[in-house]
């Protein structure tokens, strides 16, 4: 646990990181229950086990940075600043949802916090990140566009097109590969000729390295380093975060392709539990502090569920809204 050897981490920062990992964990566990209760429908992909990645990355960003993620994005959306109420209401298909009930679990969006989805075509949002980076470069904005994707996306052509463009044009984009070792039921070894993903990305002549994605401090540190390399014209960076999902791919997946022992081995490295344990051991937090974080997260999510349950549905008369924009709409 190399990152935990980091000395001098203030208790406050430690608490913030743990708080956000716990918030994601609680949100996701509640989502699973609500899916079983048929409150949430469609595809639902949980981030349980991977919390250290989104948390560490998000804590190293500026609030003005742009973020794009996959359909496994509830945690990223939450930490970018979309309130749990907006996320939950979206999954309930309500009008108060952050996408007005049009998107659901896989398509959370928020213009105010520069959260560009919630994208469910594997690899499809990587070129989008390139374009956002280009717009910032042209405008002289000091912003970074951060793009999360699974290792499965690295087999898609769009990954290669996007990395090539970003490198060629020296764009301020951070590519964050969340390598949880499986794309649905397909393991990395059976889908990639080169399983050293950083090496693969480095072929595009961009700085690329691999990080322990179960260690939130390592993730945050690597992201800070990457961000400082990118800003000021340094061009794109690729980081592979090695992580693991503890749950099945989606609620439809019977998870037949993994050895249960493998899952148990990874669970021993549960990023939330291990970090909390370390913080207590280091006397940065007390057991009561940690309990308080769990309680607060439960309260937050419970309030979101209650609000979502009470929220109105979009009227059917609005069915055809938001297909195309009018000039008046976008200039207001």
């Amino acid at each position, binding site marked *: 646990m190399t990152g935990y050897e980091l000395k001098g981490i203030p208790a406050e920062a430690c608490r913030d990181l743990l708080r956000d990992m716990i918030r994601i964990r609680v949100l996701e566990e509640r989502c699973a229950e609500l899916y079983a209760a048929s409150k949430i429908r469609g595809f639902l992909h949980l981030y349980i086990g991977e919390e250290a990645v989104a948390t560490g990355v998000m804590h190293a960003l500026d609030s003005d940075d*742009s973020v794009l993620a996959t359909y496994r994005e509830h945690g990223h959306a939450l930490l970018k600043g979309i309130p749990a109420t907006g996320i939950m209401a979206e999954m309930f298909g309500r009008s108060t*949802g*952050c*996408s*007005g*009930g*049009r*998107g659901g679990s896989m*398509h959370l*969006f*928020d*213009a105010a916090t520069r959260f*560009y*989805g*919630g*994208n469910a*075509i594997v690899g*499809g*949002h*990587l*070129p*989008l*990140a*390139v*374009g*956002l*980076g*280009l*717009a*910032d470069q*042209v*405008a002289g904005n000091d912003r970074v566009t951060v793009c999360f994707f699974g290792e499965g996306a690295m087999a898609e*052509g*769009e990954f*290669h*097109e*996007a990395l*090539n*463009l970003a490198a*060629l044009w020296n764009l301020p984009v951070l590519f964050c590969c969340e390598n949880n070792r499986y794309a649905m039921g397909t393991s990395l070894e059976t889908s990639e000729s080169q399983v050293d993903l950083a090496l693969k990305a480095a072929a595009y002549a961009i700085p690329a390295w691999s990080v322990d994605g179960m260690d939130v401090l390592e993730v945050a540190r690597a992201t800070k380093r990457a961000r400082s390399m990118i800003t000021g014209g340094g061009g794109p960076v690729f980081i592979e975060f090695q992580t693991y999902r503890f749950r099945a791919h989606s609620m439809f997946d019977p998870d037949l392709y993994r050895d249960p022992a493998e899952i148990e081995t990874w669970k021993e490295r549960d990023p939330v539990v291990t970090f909390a344990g370390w913080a207590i051991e280091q006397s940065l937090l007390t057991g009561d502090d940690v309990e308080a974080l769990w309680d607060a997260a439960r309260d937050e999510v419970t309030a979101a569920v209650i609000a979502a349950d009470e929220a109105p549905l979009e009227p059917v008369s609005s069915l055809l*809204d*938001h*297909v*195309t*924009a*009018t*000039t008046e*709409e*976008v200039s207001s």
Partner: protein
Amino acid sequence: MTGPEVETTYREAMRDAIREALATDDRVIVLGEDVADYGGTYAVTKGLHEEFGRDRVRNTPLSESGFVGAGIGAALGGLRPIVEIMTVNFSLLALDQIVNTAATLRHMSGGQFHVPLVIRMTTGAGRQLAAQHSHSLEGWYAHVPGLKVIAPATASDARWMLPTALADPNPVILFEHNALYGEHGSIDPVGGPVDITQAAIRRSGNDVSIIAWAGMVHKAMAAAAVLADQGVDAEVIDLRSLRPLDADTLAESVARTHHAVVVDEGWLTAGLNAEIAALITERCFWTLDAPVRRLASAEVPIPYAQHLEEHAIPQVDDIVAAVNRLVRDGV
């Protein structure tokens, strides 16, 4: 505002439109394969990189999905990209970005985002380029809510539809038929942007409405001239906008002529021609004197050999014959 008309070509008119956009709006960039030094596959953007620099007239690698997606992202980020895809044939490599991303973002985000983007590409057959370089797939794009699809058929529209498309807050797919680039026409150099949702009546007539777009407009006009000599007074409608369709103009015309022929360079089965025929039947059933006729390409990949290609695509003679049968024999 109008000024004295000047003679130009479709290609130059389109270039002038792009030049004006680059000159008047800092947010406009041109992205595409070989748009700079090469001058664009069909020489539309020729020289613009020298005027505006390589950052604004930006060559991309061969990566249709990548640079179309980058255009979408840049539009989200505040730019007004004009993305050039060499031809509609290669746009199939970017279908994912166009259909799954550009067309959906506004809706999926509950109206929070919009994608002000113009994607230009050539379309059409007729140059013996064989099956992989002769597609007319604009009807596919016209199928998709969230997109606008236009097809300027005249030099004047090439000049004046682009500004409207660029001002539109939505993704606009702009089709340029490959046979039109050398087409001469007179344009009003200060004419100003035109409504891109309206069809244009290119020739007024009383006996039949011939409905066409892009390259077929010119064949329809040639057919109308022949028909006039034969005593048939044809009206020619240039759709210009394939999505949305200007149903009112079509219905108004057919209600007067009582006969309709749709001419499509795409295939017949499930083509845009079918949509138009259905629309006319729904709107004008009781005023039609005969069934709506459709002329479209033969159900075959476009062949290389000149005579075969000619037979595969609707020609002036085919239109003349079809109209005569319709107005004289009612079939």
